[in-house]
C-alpha cells in the first residue's frame, strides 16, 4: 500500500513537473502558430512495426546476400527519415485560433469553435483534434486556407470551464511517425448555475404599478410592428412577413407595464450561495420564456429590468460569475 502511495505521489509530481514544463514551453494564447518549440515527433506504434519489418527485410538481404534487397531495405529506411520532415511539415506553420466557446448549463455539452489556418500553400491532412474530455475531430485543410472545427465537451460546475490543453496530432503522410502538440488556447466556456425550480417566486418584489401603457412582450394583445432591433426575442420576429419578402420586423404586444420583476438575492433568505444562484437562474430562464420584464439584483451587480435574449445572457452571465475570479 505504502509503495502505491509513494508511486502515486511520484507520478503526480512528475505529471505536475511535466505540466509546468509544457506551460513554459507552450504558454496559453488565443492564437498559436505551430513551430519547432511546440511540435513533438516520435515514431508511432505502426512505425515500430515498420522497424520490425525492415529488420526482417535486412535479414533476408544479408542471408541471401542480395544487394537489391539491401537497396530496397535502405530505401524504406531513408523513406522513414524523410518522413520525419514531411510529418513535421504537416503540422508546422498551422495557426490555431480560438474563436469562441458557447456557454452551457452544468452537465450540458459546450461547443468550442476553433479555426485552423494554414501558413502556406500546402495541404494538411488528417489533423486529429481533441481536448481531454471532448469528442474528436479529424480534418483536412486541402484547397482552402482555413477551416472551422467544432468540438464538444461536457462542462462541470458553475463558473469558467477550462477544457485543458488541446491535443492536435497527425501521422500523415506515412503513418510511421506521430507528430503532436498540446496547446492551451486560453479558451474558456462559461457555465451557468444549475437551474433549480421553486414553486413560486418568494417575496415577489413588485414595483408600484404606474399604469403606463408600454409595449412589452409577454402580453397577449397585439399592438403593432416595428423594425427588428438587436435584442428582440426571436419569438417576436414576424417570420411570415420575412417569408413574404418584407423587412425583418418584430411584433409588438401592448400591455400595461404593471409589474417588472426584480430577481433579488435577498428573496432566498437562508439558502446557500449556490442554491440562491440556482433558483435565480431558474427564474431568469422562466421569466425569459414568458417574455416577462425582469431585473437582477445580487451583491455587486444590478441589472435594470428589461427583456430579450441579450438581456437574458447578461443576467445568466452575472449569475455564473458571481464570486468567480477572472479566468486563470
Amino acid at each position, binding site marked *: 500500500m505504502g509503495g502505491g502511495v509513494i508511486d502515486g505521489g511520484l507520478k503526480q509530481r512528475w505529471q505536475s513537473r511535466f505540466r509546468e514544463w509544457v506551460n513554459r514551453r507552450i504558454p496559453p494564447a488565443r492564437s498559436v502558430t505551430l513551430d519547432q518549440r511546440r511540435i513533438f515527433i516520435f515514431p508511432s506504434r*505502426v512505425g515500430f*512495426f*515498420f522497424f520490425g*519489418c525492415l529488420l*526482417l*527485410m535486412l*535479414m*533476408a*538481404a*544479408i*542471408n*541471401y*546476400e*542480395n*544487394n*537489391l*534487397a*539491401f*537497396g*530496397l*531495405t*535502405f*530505401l*524504406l*529506411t*531513408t*523513406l522513414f*527519415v*524523410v*518522413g520525419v*520532415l*514531411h510529418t*513535421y*511539415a504537416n503540422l*508546422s*506553420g498551422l495557426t490555431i*485560433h480560438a474563436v469562441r466557446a458557447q456557454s452551457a448549463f452544468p452537465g450540458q455539452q459546450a461547443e468550442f469553435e476553433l479555426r485552423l489556418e494554414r*501558413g*502556406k*500553400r500546402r*495541404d494538411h*491532412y*488528417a489533423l*486529429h483534434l481533441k481536448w481531454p474530455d471532448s469528442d*474528436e475531430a*479529424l480534418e*483536412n485543410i*486541402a484547397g482552402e486556407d482555413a477551416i472551422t472545427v467544432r468540438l464538444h465537451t461536457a462542462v462541470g460546475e458553475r463558473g469558467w470551464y477550462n477544457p485543458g490543453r488541446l491535443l492536435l496530432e497527425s*501521422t*500523415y*503522410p*506515412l*503513418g510511421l511517425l506521430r507528430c503532436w502538440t498540446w496547446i492551451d488556447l486560453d479558451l474558456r466556456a462559461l457555465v451557468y448555475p444549475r437551474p433549480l425550480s421553486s414553486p413560486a417566486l418568494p417575496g415577489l418584489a413588485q414595483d408600484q404599478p404606474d399604469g403606463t401603457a408600454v409595449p412589452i412582450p409577454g402580453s397577449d394583445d397585439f399592438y403593432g410592428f416595428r423594425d427588428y432591433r438587436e435584442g428582440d426575442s426571436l419569438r417576436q420576429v414576424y417570420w411570415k412577413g420575412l417569408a413574404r419578402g418584407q423587412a425583418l420586423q418584430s411584433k409588438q404586444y401592448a400591455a400595461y407595464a404593471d409589474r417588472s420583476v426584480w430577481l433579488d438575492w435577498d428573496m432566498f433568505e437562508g439558502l446557500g450561495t449556490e442554491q440562491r444562484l440556482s433558483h435565480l437562474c431558474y427564474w431568469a430562464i422562466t421569466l425569459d420564456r414568458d417574455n416577462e420584464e425582469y431585473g437582477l439584483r445580487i451583491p455587486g451587480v444590478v441589472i435594470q429590468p428589461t427583456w430579450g435574449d441579450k438581456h437574458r445572457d447578461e443576467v445568466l452571465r452575472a449569475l455564473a460569475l458571481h464570486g468567480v475570479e477572472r479566468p486563470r
Partner: protein
Amino acid sequence: MTPEQQVPRNALAWMILCLFTLVAPHAGRIPFWVLLVYVVAVVWRIQVYRGHWSFPGRWVKLALILSATGGIFLSFGSLIGLEPTVALLLTAFALKLTELVGRKDAYVLIFLGYFICITEFLFSQDLLIVFYMAFNVLLLTTALVALHQPGEQRFNRSSLRLAGVMLLQAFPLMVVLFFLFPRIGPLWTVPIKSHSAKTGMSDFLRPGDVSNLSQSAEVAFRVEFDGEIPAFTDLYWRGLVMSRLEDGAWRSLRYWDVPPGERRAPVLDTSGEGLEYSVIMEPTQQNWLYSLGYSRSATSGVMELSDYRLYSPVAVEQESQYRVQSWPDTRRDPTLTDWRRTQELRLPETGNPLTRELALELKTQADSDQAFVDTVLNYFTRNPFVYTLQPPLLGDDPMDQFLFQTRRGFCEHYAYAFVMMMREAGVPARIVAGYMGGEVNPVNRTVIVHQFDAHAWAEVWLDGQGWVRVDPTAAVAPDRIEWGLEQAVAGEGSFLAQSPLSPLRYRNIDLINMLRLRYDALTYSWQAWVTGFNSEQQYEFLNNLLGEVSASRFVVVLLGTWALVLTPVALSLLMRRRRHRLAPEDRQYLVFCERMARMGVVREPWESPSAFAGRAARKLPRFAEQIDAITARYEALSYQPGADSDERAQQHRELRQQVRRLQLAY
C-alpha cells in the same frame, strides 16, 4: 470504427492495383490457381465495398488459409524451399485483402507488399525488373499516403505525387547507406531455390550435351580485364575438369573422390605475364567458376581446386562477381602423383573396342607422347570429319560409332575421342569443359561470353611440360577457334536456329547491334556496381574514396551526406512561408497596434480600427489626438482608392511619421 481508422476508397483502389502489379512478375513461378485466388479476393473485397457481400467469417478464413497451404503443398510437393514460401506469401497477400477492414489491416498489407518486392529480387536482379519493382514501391507508398488522407475518396494524384517526391528525396540517402553498410556473410542458411533449372555447363558430359547448350543465346558471364584483352584464341575459360568416365558420361572428381592429401591445390611458381580481370557470372545454380589457365582469386568464397579450377562452395544463385589473377603460361603439375596418374589414365574395362584398337595402332607410329598427340590430331584432320551443331545420336559404343561411322560431331565428340585414345595409349589426359572465346563489347571493353561459346577440349600431361591444353576441335574446324561458333557453322545455317528473335542473330544490322551492345554495357555496370557489389569491392571502393575505412569516417560521411540532402528538403518544406505582401499602410497600422499593446490596449481581432481607436483614446486620453489622426489616415488610405500615386506616397510618409512620433512620445 473511428473515422481515423477507416480506409479511404482511393487507398483501397491503390492497394488493389498493387496486388496485381506485384504478383505479375511472379506469375511464372507460382501455380495458376494462385492467380485465381487474386481475382476472387479482389472481387470479394469490391463486393464488400459495394455492400453486396460481407467480410469472411472466422471459419471461412481458417478454411481459406488451410486450403491455400494444402494447395501449395500439393503443387510443389513440399512447403520448404524458396518457391513454395514465396507462393504462400503471395497467397496470404491476396487473402489479406478479403479481410481488409481498417487501417491496421492496410498497414499489414502494404508492408507485406514491400516484402514481396524483395522476394522478386531473389529470383531476378535484371535491370528492367528493378525499374518495375521501383514502380511497385511507388504504388505501395502511394497507397500508404492515401491511407492517411481521410475523406479523400476520389482517386487523386496528390498522394502519388507526394509518394514520388518522398521516394526521390530518400533515394540519395539510400545510395549512401548502400555503399557504406558493411556486407557481412549470411547469418544462417536460408531456403534456396530448389525448383529453378540449373543452367550453363553441367558436370555430366555426354556427346550432344554441349551442342545442345550452344543453341542458347543467353549470356553466361561477362569479363572485364584490367589491361589488354588477350587474343581470341587464348580465351579458353576453364570451368570443369572432367577426369572420370562413368556410364558413358564424363564428370569431374568430387570432393570425396579425392584423398585428403590431394585436395589442396598446390601453389605454383608463376611464370609468364599475369592477367587480372573480374568476372560477373549470371546465376547458374551450380558451383563452378570460370578462369583462364592457372588462376588464383582473392574473393572470399572462391576456392582453388587441385585440378586448377576455381570453385564456389555455394551454388551461384544470383549474379555474382569475383576477381581473378591468371598466369596462362604457368606449368601445372610438373610431376604427377601416382594417385593422380591413375585417375587420369582410368578407362572403363570394356566398350569402344575399335577406338582402343585405333589408339594403340596410332601410338606405335609415334615415338613420344607429344608426337602421339600430333598423330591423333592429324588423324582428325586427314579423315573427313565434320564439325556440326546437329550431331547424330550415338549408340552403345559411341566413340566407335563416331570415329568410324558418322564422323559428324561437336567439340565434345572430338574431346571425348581424343582423351579416350590418349588414356588407352597411356598418356594422362582429361576433358576440360567451359567456354571458348567471347564477344568484345566496344562500348566498355568487356568480354561477353554467351552460352553458345560453350566448348570442351582436352588437357594432356607431357613429361617436362605438365598439363598442356590440346583442342581437337581446332584440327577439324579451325574457324571455331579463330572466329567463333557463328563462322564455324555458317555453312550449316544452324547458328541460334532455335531463337529467331535473338538480337545476336542480327549483328549485321548496325543499329540493332549498337543498341544491344549499349544495353549490355549498362547491364555490366549495373552488375558490377549494384548486384555484384561485395565486401572486397566495398573495401576497395571506400578505401579509394575515404582514404581509410574506419568507423569514424563512416559516421562523418553518413551524417555529412545526409545533412547535405536533408537540409534543402527541410528548407523547402518548412521555411518557404507564404508571406502576405502587406500593403504599406497595413504594415504601419500593425506597428501602431503593437505600440498600443505595449501601452496596455490590445486590439481584439474583431475590433474595427475606429472602434479600437475609440477604446484606446478613452484609455489613453493623453494620446487621443494622435490615435485618432493615425486611424483616420489609415482608414483613408485603406478605403479611399483613386488618389494618384504621388499623393498616396506622401500620405504613407506622413502615416509613418505619425506612428514613429507616437512611439517616441511614449
